[in-house]
């Protein structure tokens, strides 16, 4: 088993103090909404693929989808997907936690430092 846990590390914060442009709460929420919009686009595209393939092959009916019930294994797989999904949605809060533990210069401060000959 890999020691790299993507659920935690995928949303890691990059080094350097994060700038905020809006009220910080508004901007945090904006980040959450952007990812929700992303995942809606993901689902929309997948559904689009599915519908086009079904249309081509004609193997499923809409009624079968409406009455589908998952098995335990299928339900667990869906749950794991939801865990990954929420790690994406709440990435900005993870980075606030990481920022609590770091002493970092801003880009402006580093720019001045790097400009010293």
């Amino acid at each position, binding site marked *: 088993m890999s020691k790299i846990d993507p659920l935690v590390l995928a949303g890691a914060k990059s080094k350097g103090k994060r*700038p905020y442009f809006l009220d910080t709460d508004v901007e945090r929420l904006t980040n959450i909404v952007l990812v929700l919009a992303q995942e809606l686009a993901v689902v929309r595209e997948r559904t689009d693929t599915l519908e086009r393939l079904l249309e081509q092959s004609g193997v499923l009916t809409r009624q079968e989808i409406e009455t589908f019930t998952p098995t335990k294994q299928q339900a667990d797989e869906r749950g794991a997907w939801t865990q990954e999904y929420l790690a994406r949605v709440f990435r900005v809060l993870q980075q606030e936690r990481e920022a609590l533990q770091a002493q970092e210069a801003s880009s402006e401060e580093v720019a001045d430092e*790097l*400009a010293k000959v």
Partner: protein
Amino acid sequence: MSSLVSDKPKAQPARPYDGPPDYRVVGQHGMYPQLSHDEISRFNFLAHVNRHLSTQIMPGVKEAFDARVEPKFMATQGRGFKDRHEVRKALLKDPMFQWWSALRRATMETRQQAGRWVTLRQADHLNAKAKALTEHDQRLKLKPDLPLPRYVEAIDHHCMPGSYHTELAEGDVTGPCNYDIGIFATTGGMLGRYNDGGGQAIAAWVKEALPDLKPQRILDIGAGLGHNVVPIAQAFPEAEVVAVDVGAPMLRYGLARAKTMGVENITFVQGDVSDLSDLADESFDMIHSCMFLHETSYASMPKIFAETHRLLKPGGIVFHVEQPQYTPEMPLFEQAMRDWDAFYNNEPFWTKMHEVDLDSWMVAAGFAPDKLIHGGVAAVVDPDVFPQAAQDTKQEDYGRKAAWHVVGAVK
């Protein structure tokens, strides 16, 4: 001859399509990770968001600047702006700039998470593949105890967690792999199938500007994962190419990636390009960097230029590909917008690098003033599927457009 014209009416799009291509046009070299349908959809979405921000939202920043930011400054200060920093600080108070900036930053961070999920979930597989391709290969020369330059250590460039150097496991290549697969999203597909539009442009520029140049040895400084040096190595298949970078993961991935693309004439060397004393004097015919100088520092730049002078054979050529310098002719608004990546996308030296007179720095390093070279290049991509920067008049994505300036010299 049968008719190709169908009688069936076709669904007409509401408007001609002018967005990014589907992600699946990206080239699948041998180090490419497996991407699921959903993971591809995320990159499609992010490419569209970046394109939307640059074509639909960013023009509003200029409109707001003209309509209210500049007039308000003039009214309260009784004068115009002195410099780009005053412009940026005034823009920071305007809602249009604030919202565009907040979304641009959020999109960059979301892109990182999307790419890191892909590479980290298959880290063991990717790292094993890179190991199999590079182990005992003399073209990978690593220096595990090389000190990191402050400009790399201080901040993770372009909000890429772990930057160019971090290894999450032994032999890690997940960082560069994430960089590689996500460039499409960041640029909206502007850099082409293998993210090599810059390198292809360099190769085409050299062949046109210097048709007699037959370089035997080529040096790429700040090569990263080698996406721009591969097309140069392909353009000069007889040449021995050396690609230097400070990040071991980049070099490891770079060699593995190049080999799977059938490119065998590049050696990837770990080094700090301000001190390349392992390389012999006058041993290269051509030295170049591509979008690299802005990630260094004033302390290192003279050393870098001096090293290129030392390493070049007499008659050899050096050149650096960068976004344009801030000259007095460039409007302060444009300068301030170009500074965005410096202050808000972890590219701190961008602002300072772009204000210096690179010609005088080259001359100070020993190059003759009458041997300096200036030019311009735009990304070379497959025009059937990718947007072309040279023809793109719809967006000026300050600092991110795939069109660059060239400054260099003949020794």
